[in-house]
Each structure stands twice: as structure tokens, then as C-alpha cells.
């Protein structure tokens, strides 16, 4: 009795825990050759600017909170080294990922070839449906020097049953849309397959407490 009372008086009120929306922890991995703009894309996801003027020390690991109407997703964005020599060690990164973004540069044909390699690699590791895989054609602002037609990317994605989008990390075009799409997809697959059940409501309080004040501000402005 005493213990019970002490517990509830300790720390935050239990109300906060129960009322808070369902919060899922989403691991999202960025794949793709070097120079296709993975890091810029990651920065775009987290801040609404192309080059961070804030004193971010690194953009290899970033987080962003996305609010859907009935749950909140905390994205952990894992950037990977794109150079070909690191290709063989990359599977370590996408172990247990909920979403994987395969990024290519629409103005460089070879980056699209690399993307196809990545997709093949991913297929070996994953049962479709468990990980949300998105093919992303980045640098859409360079459409003047485009080497990979929109249709080609679209057809590739369609043939493999993936999501497809063209974005521009530079202008920010379609970036929030991409994140929201992934959020919905991940949410959906988490309720269908066991996907996210491994982290049931994980980290719920950690975020609510730590980032409570900034939670609303950090949320994507794009309505769900």
C-alpha cells in the first residue's frame, strides 16, 4: 500500500503515460551510391532546410517524429556509406529495419544501376511486406540533365512491388510527402504483420518526456 503510493508519487503522473498516443519506433535505412544525396535527404527529413545552418555535428544518425492521427512514429534515420567498397558490409545496417530507401540520382544513369544492385541485395534479405522499401529518384531539380526517365524508375518499382517517388532534397520538393507515405505504410504493415510488434509502444515515455515541449513543433506540418 505504502509502496504503491510512493510509486505513483514518484516522477510523472500515470495519466501522461496512458493518454499519450501510441508511439512506434521506426528504423529507416538510406541506401544508394555516394553522391546521390542520401545525407541531404536525411537532413531534409529532419529539418526543413537543405544545408543545415544549425550546428549539427553529424547527419549520419538523425531522428524525426511524425504524428499520424492515432499514433506517433519516431523515425530513426540511419545513413549508410555509399561507396562501392563498403557494399559488402552494408547488410549489417539494414538488419531489423522497418523501412529502406534506395536512392538514386536522376541525372546519373550509373547511380540507377547501383540502385538496382541494392534492390537485389535487399530482396535476398527480406520477405516482401515486412520492410517498406521505397525507390527514390533524387535531385528532381536537375531534370534538365535527366538521364533516368521518370517512367523507367516507375516501371522498376512497379515490377518489384515497391513504392516510388522522385524528390529533390535541394528544393525540398516531395520530401515531406515521402516521409508521410512511409509513415503510413510502416504503420499499416505494423498492424498487419508482426513488423513493429517487437517494439510495442517502445520509447513512448522517453520521447514524451524528453521532447514533450518540442513535440508539436517537431511534427511534420503535412497533415495526415
Amino acid at each position: 500500500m505504502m509502496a504503491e503510493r510512493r510509486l505513483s508519487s514518484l516522477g510523472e503522473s500515470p495519466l501522461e503515460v496512458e493518454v499519450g498516443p501510441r508511439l512506434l519506433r521506426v528504423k529507416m535505412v538510406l541506401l544508394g551510391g555516394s553522391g546521390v544525396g542520401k545525407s541531404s535527404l536525411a537532413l531534409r527529413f529532419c529539418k526543413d532546410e537543405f544545408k543545415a545552418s544549425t550546428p549539427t555535428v553529424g547527419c549520419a544518425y538523425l531522428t524525426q517524429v511524425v504524428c499520424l492521427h492515432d499514433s506517433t512514429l519516431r523515425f530513426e534515420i540511419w545513413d549508410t556509406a555509399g561507396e562501392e567498397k563498403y557494399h559488402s558490409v552494408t547488410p549489417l545496417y539494414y538488419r531489423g529495419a522497418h523501412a529502406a530507401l534506395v536512392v538514386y540520382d536522376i541525372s546519373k544513369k550509373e547511380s540507377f544501376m547501383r540502385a538496382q544492385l541494392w534492390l537485389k541485395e535487399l530482396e535476398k534479405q527480406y520477405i516482401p511486406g515486412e520492410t517498406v522499401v521505397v525507390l527514390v529518384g533524387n535531385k528532381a531539380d536537375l531534370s534538365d540533365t535527366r538521364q533516368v526517365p521518370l517512367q523507367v524508375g516507375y516501371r522498376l518499382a512497379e515490377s518489384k512491388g515497391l513504392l516510388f517517388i522522385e524528390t529533390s532534397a535541394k528544393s525540398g520538393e516531395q520530401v515531406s510527402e515521402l516521409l508521410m507515405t512511409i509513415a503510413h505504410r510502416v504503420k499499416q504493415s505494423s498492424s498487419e504483420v508482426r513488423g513493429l510488434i517487437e517494439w510495442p509502444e517502445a520509447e513512448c515515455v522517453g520521447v514524451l518526456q524528453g521532447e514533450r515541449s518540442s513535440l508539436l513543433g517537431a511534427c511534420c506540418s503535412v497533415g495526415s
Partner: protein
Amino acid sequence: MSQKSERRGIHVDQSELLCKKGCGYYGNAAWQGLCSKCWREEYQRARQKQIQEDWALAEKLQREEEAAYASIQGAQSQPSLTPFSKFEEKKTNEKTRKVTTVKKFFSPSSRTAPKKESHEGKAPSPSITRQSSIETDRVSRDFVDFLKNLQKPGREIHKQCRAFIENMANKKDLGADELSECVQDFYQNMSDRLMTHFKGSTERVERVMDQVEKYIMTRLYKNVFCPETTDDEKKDLATQHRIRALHWVTIQMLCVPVDEEIPEVSDNVVKAITDVIEMDSKRVPRDKLACITRCSKHIFNAIKITKNEPASADDFLPTLIYIVLKANPPRLQSNIQYITRFCNPSRLMTGEDGYYFTNLCCAVAFIEKLDAQSLNLSAEDFERYMSGQASPRKQEPEVWPQEDAGAGRSPGLTQVYQSLDLLTGLGARQDRVLEGARSLESDLISWQESVEREVQEILEKYPLEIRTPASAIDSDNVENDRLPPPLQPQVFAG
């Protein structure tokens, strides 16, 4: 007793409400009539006693075990019938592997006393052992302190942990994977229970789980880190040799975006190296992870200062590889395996610590597979560097053309000349130092002489004469009567 009276209590005396220790604060029935502060002290004392008793028991058990073991060794008759046969196996195993286990002699754990704690008098280096047992004690105390805040469930958690550790002590001979499974199962069960207890407050569950992990792993560390049943140690040595063989790899070859000429950058590089080396000294998986994270943060700083923009993974991974090559962290594979086996899994797959840990794993995997192509070298050059026939150390572009032109100056020779120059310079400087020392010496001697001379002169000028001491004031002071009479005490009425 006061508890009883209070329970019944309609009429409670004021004194009964106060802490029984008489510290002036109010007491509480739940704390046996003590105030919270006194109760905590009391409780801690009891806990401490309990821990000591446990220790005594553990030591006793160990002595018994050792005695039994010694008798078996003496008899050597039927080792297969005793539960200690495995020890025997390990012994022989150890003998055959003596060559590769040199470093074991430097580790505090002693093969002859495989009990989880207390190797007093047995271990080769008592100071280290004592230190580690002090650490164990400190961790236990911290754990108990932490659990005290949780009251009843805290006691339950402590009981479970102790039971688990005792249980694990009997399972020493299991393979590393089974041990890992046991620990992971325990984590899972514990966090499930906590989850129901805290009604789904994940943050609090994690806080408790962190403490549980710390307590358990500090105690299990010796038995489950780099266990005999695995080839972790062999892998450690292989990696160590590999990294040593790659000593010639330069920043340029790995395309590391770090300029060590900038003092601030090289400072961060040194810190990163220190952190990744420090990982080996930690016992708790989470502390090891924290070392990796600190190391990574320093790397990010170094890149940030060099490039003046936030580091991406393309910058980070090569730099981490470079740091690992420079640091050659001790028992790298064992540490990675240990973390993988015994860390709370949610920390490895996700989260910032998880990300950096994954990068470290990638770096190690890359170093193992590293070849000429990944360093942008020709296969022949790579072979030559690996075999030590050539060294690219001083590969400054202005040196190589000289060699091509037949100037006959290989980078090695240049370095030799440089070293010679340096040595000559050093020689000259040493001469100067010696000269200075000599002049200082003569200065000192002459100074001493001059002081002596002066003292002598003064002594001669003012010869010492002993005068008779001045006479006492009272005895034959002629002017005594001129002094006023001493004050007399006076009595006043009232």
C-alpha cells in the same frame, strides 16, 4: 511494537509520531517508526550485512569446491564421474593453447579459481583482483540503493537477480550462445514483469533494466567475457595481427576527410582513439556502447572541424575505420561478441548507440576483407606493403619523382637522413645543456665559496661575545620602589 499501537491508535502521543532514533523528524509505521532518512540508513546497514553474509557463503562454497577439486587432482582416478571433470578438460585445453593465451596471464581472472568472485590469495595479481571486487561491491551497493527507491518490488528484483546469478554460476560450462540465451531470457522475463508492474511505462522499465543489466553483467563478466568455449580469443589475435599488418594505411588511402594538421582535429582524433581503447576496460555492455558512442562523437567533431559541414555516413565510416586501425583496440572481437550476446537487444538494433555499434561492426568487417582495391592501390603495391618490403609512409609526391629520376633517394632513405639531421641537432642541444650544467655547477661552487667568505668576514668583524644575562626584574632591581603598588582586590557591597 509502536507499529501495533499506532495501527490501533485513536490516541497517539506526539512522541510516538517522532522518529525512534530521536532525530526530531516524524517517523512512519511503515519504516518501523523511523523517519525516511534513518530508515534508509538502517535498511542499508541490514543490506550490507546481508551482502557480506552472501560473500562469506560464496567464499566458503568456493573453498569447498577447491578442496574437492584438489582431491580429484591428487587422485586423478575417475574424473568423468565428478562434476569437475570439465575443469580438468579446460586445464588440458589451456595447456595445448598456451601459445595463444599469453594475454590471459595479464587478465585478472585466474584459471585456477573460476568462481565468479573472490580469488583472494589465488589470483596472480591481487591488486587487480581487489580492485575488481571493490568495483563489484560498489555496483552492488549502487544497485541496492537504486532498488530501495522502489520499495517492495525492488526487493523482489534483487532477489531474482541474485537467484539468477547463482543459477548462472552453475551453468559455467554452457556454450556462449546458450549463456547469451539465458541472459536474454532473463532480460525478457524481467522487463515483461516490470511492464505489468509499471503499467506500461517503458521509460521506467528501461531505467530499471539498465540497472539490472549493470548489476548482473558486472558479476557475470568474468565468466562470460571471451569464454573458453568460443574461439573469440583466436579471432581477437587474428584481428590484432591484421591491424598491425595494416599499419602503413594512410588517411589518403582511405579517403578520410580529416586533417590532422589542425590541432583541434588531432585532439579529437586522439580522444576518439582513447575512447575506443577504453571500451575494453568496461564490464557492462551499455558502458562499452557508451565508449563507442563517445568515440563516434569525437570523430564527428573532427570531420566537422575539417570540412566545416556536418559529417555524413560517407565521411564517418572511413574515419571510424582509420581510428580502429590507429587504435588497434584490445580484444576487439571479444568485446563485439560480448556486447552482441549480453546487451539488451533493443539497444543494438535501434537507437543512436545501436547505430554507432553497427558502424563499428562494419569497420571491423571491412578491415578483415580489406584489399588493394578498397585502398585504391595496385595488387602488387598492396602485397609489398603487407609483406613489409616497402612502406608508403612518406609518399609525398615530391619524393617519388626524385626516385624515378634516379636521384637515389627512396622515402626510407630520406627519412633516415631526416632522422640523422634530427639526431645531430639533438646532439648539439645536449652539448649545450651539458655546458650549461657545467657552468651552473661552477657558479654554484663559487657562490657557496663567496657566501662562506662573507660569513667569515662578518664573523670576524663582529666577534661573538657572550654577555651575562640581564638580572631578573624582581630580585635586585634598584628602581623597584618607584613602581606604583600592585592593585589590591576590593570588595564592593551587593
